[in-house]
């Protein structure tokens, strides 16, 4: 058992589950999407990305790429949230919420790809 793989697997799956948790619910209803969850998703995704830094394998490079995509989408979602709450006069509108959730949905897709890749790698190692 490789501890590095355990830690990375943990964070990448956690990123996916948290992301899913934030994503589910009515698209434009702010009550269904909590800011704490978004915060957790961002942090966990950042950690998963940094964990793949300096990995010279082909799989490592692809995983780094998918994690970077997820981080990018989530950071944009966080910025949209901040702008909606603090920089616009209307506050959090259903439109803003919908775009935040759809961004996080994109990030979730990237996280799904990461997890699928991880599973494939594991299966190939087993064989």
């Amino acid at each position, binding site marked *: 058992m490789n501890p590095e793989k355990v830690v990375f697997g943990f964070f990448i799956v956690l990123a996916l589950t948290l992301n899913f948790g934030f994503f589910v619910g009515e698209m434009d209803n702010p009550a269904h999407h909590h800011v704490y969850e978004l*915060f957790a998703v961002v*942090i966990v995704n*950042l*950690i998963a990305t*940094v964990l793949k*830094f*300096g990995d010279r394998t082909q799989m490592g490079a692809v995983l780094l790429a998918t994690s970077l995509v997820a981080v990018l989408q989530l950071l944009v979602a*966080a910025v949209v949230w*901040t702008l909606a709450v*603090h920089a616009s006069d209307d506050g959090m509108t259903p439109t803003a919420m919908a775009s935040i959730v759809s961004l996080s949905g994109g990030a979730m897709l990237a996280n799904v790809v990461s997890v699928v890749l991880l599973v494939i790698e594991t299966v190939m190692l087993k064989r």
Partner: protein
Amino acid sequence: MENIFFIVFRRMRAPLLSLIGAYAVAVLGLVLIPGQDAAGNPWHMDFFHAFYFVSYTATTIGFGEIPYPLTDAQRLWVVLTLYLSVVVWVYAIGTLVALFQDTTFKMAVTERRFARRIRRMAQRFYLICGYGETGGALVQALTDRDQSAVVVEIRPERVSHLRLENLRQHVPALCGDAGRPLHLLEAGLKHPKCAGVAALTNLNEVNLKIAITAKLLHGDTPVICRADSHDVEANMASFGTDYIIDPFDTFAAHLAMAFQTPGLHLLHEWLTRLPGEDLPEPVNPPRDGLWLVCGYGRFGKAVHQRLVAQGMETRVIEATPESTGVPEVGCVVGRGTEGKTLREAEIERAVGLVAGTDNDVNNLSMVMTAQDLNPALFLVLRQNLKDNRPIIDAVKADMVMHPPTIIADKIRVLLATPLLHELEQLAAYQPNSWACELLSRVTALVTTRVPAVWEVAVDAQGAYAIAEVLAGGGRVLLSHVLTDPLERTKPLAALALLLVRPGERVLVPEEDTALRPGDRILFCGRHHVRDRMAWTLQNCSSLSYILTGAHRPQGHVWRWLSPGRRSQAG
């Protein structure tokens, strides 16, 4: 190489993770801990403000308690996270600084910069492996003639020595083992502009490996190897190493040439020295009489063999005959630095002395003692170390032989002007009078300065204009090339030394020789003449002026307007 990228990210993983962790904990704490707004109502800091607050406190900027003054519970949390985050920052920056000073990292950066520089080389260059005395002399000789070199050297102090050297060209140097193919590839072995490889390290095995690598990975480049033993020479020759140079044989052959055909020796000196220097004086070593050879090492043996082959009477002076061996006759045991040994070897009736030990101080001492005993002696002095030049020059020996310089010159000729090497091989079969006649013709051209020597290939690259005329069925004579393109009645101050075409090698070709496509010609002459000649070779209207005496119309319109010349121009 992407090495640097990976080294940085690999090392920065832990600091970045701790930064993310510290920020996450601090921000989350600030969001969770209840505060108060200006009116005393309960208020929770949101993520945006918490991140803002942590950012300016962690970087020790400290704008104050924004937007509302903190409660005591918040302050307690801030105190804890402040220390945590500052420590993590120091850790991250410290790691980065340590990384930049890391030797592995520095080497990766240097190698990357070197590889990039090599990839961008636009000029033909020579790959020199080993920057010892010989490699140094070769690099100097090449750069003095505006040619590029790339050096691979294993000793860091020699590489820094190269960087301090005042060379006319920048010479990229890689500090690495030339025996490793990776380093040779990085140094541009497979680069299309790599015009030759010289293996000059001190180790025969490494030279052998360089030769094999070069032959396998880039078969067309000429490979020149230094070899100290005949075994290794045979091994190198077995897989087609182009030239193998034994420093001692080369050196002795050089000396023998000075004896046998002084004219040829002088011609060699004139054509291989740095253009623009004063022409070296001729040397005339006495051929009849007793010669003393001091030192019977590999060098002394080679020289002795040549002297005996010339039928000269010789005496060998050797301090340790039991380790070097001695010839059957004419040997004196001693160091040769004191008068007693020299007198024993009958210095009074000797005509020449070869001070050929591998110790410059002993050689000098020997020469000075010998000069006292017999002032008329012809002195041949072997110089071992380049740095001893001033004291070697001070004793005014008749011939000074610095093996690295001689080898370097030979390699430079082989690499940069292979025709000059062919000329010397052909000239070796010519009588001394032939050399003397050629010498007087060269003197007439250049008077007192060393001439420039250059090669011209009659093809689309080397002589575009001539190739065009020849392809169109025209006729160009050698005399046309040797005409001033500015004034066709004047000749250029240059001389064709050798013409090589398939199946034919003509020494000093006649001026009315007709050129053919694929000819290669070796010229010598004044330095600026080379640039002048380039006009005739490359510029169609210059050549047509020389051939016909008329200026050809340049543009399409003018060509069209002058119907009489249209056929000729087309």
